[in-house]
């Protein structure tokens, strides 16, 4: 059972690289959506069956795999852009940094004082690597939509770490956090739409009217 979970986690790590290395926004959105679905199935694999766990699994797959991607794809269509051009951090450097962060995450996780039942699991390094990749996308990209994707990757990383505590997290808290994420992406989608109308691009480097004189 756990080897399947490990394989899914490795897949998650590969998806990070796919997002880091591509300029096509629709492809990135699909990658993040697939990662969301993978993350959603994980609680079912690492925890014994209960209504609590199944509720979480279903709602995560629904929100991360369907609702959020639809919201973002809609924003992309309205803004009429397909690609990320000239990011602050290029694709090759992003990939190299991503690889570096991933290996650091493994070294780091091996040193962490984990509780015995969690030692040797891939969850912690995968969480740290996904979190860092998210940061990288967030900082390195120009387009508002790419930044949202970076934020989502980050959230996924944090969520992975939360897997270690799934018993501790009451359903209400999980559901609330998921709802917040959904509403957050919804609001961001609206703002992106307005940015593209106002500036006729969603290039956040154009957002520079406000700065210190």
């Amino acid at each position, binding site marked *: 059972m756990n080897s399947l979970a490990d394989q899914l986690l490795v897949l998650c790590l590969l998806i990070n690289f796919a997002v880091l290395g591509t300029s096509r926004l629709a492809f990135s959105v699909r990658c993040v959506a697939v990662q969301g679905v993978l993350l959603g199935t994980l609680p079912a694999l690492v925890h014994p069956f209960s209504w609590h766990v199944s509720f979480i699994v279903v709602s995560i797959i629904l929100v991360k795999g369907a609702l959020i991607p639809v919201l973002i794809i809609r924003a992309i269509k309205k803004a009429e852009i397909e690609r990320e051009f000239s990011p602050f951090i290029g694709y090759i450097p992003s990939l190299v940094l991503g690889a570096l962060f991933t290996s650091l995450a493994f070294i780091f996780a091996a040193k962490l004082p984990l509780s015995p039942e969690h030692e040797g699991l891939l969850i912690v390094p995968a969480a740290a690597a996904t979190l860092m990749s998210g940061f990288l996308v967030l900082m390195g990209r120009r387009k508002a939509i790419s930044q949202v994707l970076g934020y989502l990757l*980050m959230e996924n990383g944090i969520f992975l770490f939360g897997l270690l505590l799934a018993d501790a*997290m009451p359903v209400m*808290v999980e559901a609330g*956090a998921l709802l917040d994420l959904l509403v*957050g992406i919804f609001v961001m989608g609206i*703002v992106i739409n307005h940015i593209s109308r106002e500036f006729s691009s969603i290039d956040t480097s154009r*957002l520079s009217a*406000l700065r210190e004189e």
Partner: protein
Amino acid sequence: MMWALVLLPLLGAALSWLVPDNRRRVWVLPLFSLAQLGVSAALLVHTPPPSPAGWIWLDPLGKLVLMANSVLFTICSFYAVGYLSYRLKRPNRVLCASLLVCLSATSLVVISQHLGLLWIALEATTLTMAPLIYFNHNARSIEATWKYLLICSVGIAIALLGLFFLAYSTIVAKQEVSLLLPTLIRDAAALHPGWRHAAFIFLLVGFGSKMGLAPLHTWKPDAYGEAPGLVGALLAGGLVNCALLALLRVYQVAAASSEGALFQQVLLTMGLVSMAFAAVFMARQSDFKRMLAYSSVEHVGIIAVALGLGKGALFAGLLHMINNSLTKGVLFLSCGNIHRAFNSKSTLFVRGAIRRTPWSAALFLAAFLAITGSPPFAPFVSEFLIVSSAFGQGNHWTGGLFLLFLALIFIGMASTVLPVVLGEVPQDLERTRYRDAAPTVLPPLVLMGLVLVLGLWIPAPLQDLLREAARLLGGEA
């Protein structure tokens, strides 16, 4: 009864969404905020026991924040009626509904004793504020909204990671996993030190960015500068308190563990750095709303210094939280009036406001004096107590730097405020529709009255409440 705090504003939000008329819809705000204020007052007098699972309770710290927020929100809601009558062309359905949902979320922050629940409520306040900052629908306000959304969302995500670390430290310590505040405080000393330490740092960064402690404050000048004065007042006087309360919860856990002293040291440094940032950026600021944002950075800094000093300063820090809320309310509301009257917030065009809007300009001047710590206003009392506590503890460096920054900020702020209020009105100034009228002047006037009264006399029940709250943070009574 406790749930009424959360449900009542939600009901109001639904109602305001249903009212079709722009002019009538606005009245939903004062109606429901008065009801909310009534419920808050009743809860302050007769506090119900904690909910069976211990998730919901109103402790003294929560009571303080609830009191400050309810009063501020009620006064702002009356101001909103006056303000929005000048802006009837702009649809205000989203504004009214978001304001009330935000009130509901802030109430949930106040009453939650479960850190996970508190986190959700805090994130909800962030999201509901976004449409409010965007009210003016122009290029600058989109930019401000985008920065605000991104920085605060990432900040709060980091705080969530911090919470997970805290929960994990209970697992590693072979205890029952819990994010309930009373349990965490009880077991704080036994938690795994490494994870606990990491948790404190992440939580400080996360909640610190929401609160606007330097150097995590970069969204603040934009958001405060572009949002309507009314929203600025709620951001600087209300939402800041919610983020602060979240930080205080962490502080409670830290104080109960062996890391209290380290946590205080970090807060002290961040507080002084915030004040320094404010002092530097406030000088020669040509946009008086952005200047208020730096004033907000300064005052969260002051509160952080008080928390860092601990002991007797805790009482003063909590008092300062209330004083800051009330005074920021006056500043932003009067500032909004001046902005309307001149149709500009640049000091190049806005001069001699006392001739065009005598009441608003006078209030702005008085609130400036109050916020910079001049007697006899309330912030003077709290700032004086913090300084004297710093010197009393033998922490001369902190006390000295604190006074130096206060002086620099006074000079910097005066160089913007005085010309705006007293200078010569420019000759070729465009005419605007706004003139001082009771609906937009009375609310800040009432707030200013409260600031003055609190400066002269702190009622005994409030004093007791402040003492109890300070004791929760490990201060001396």
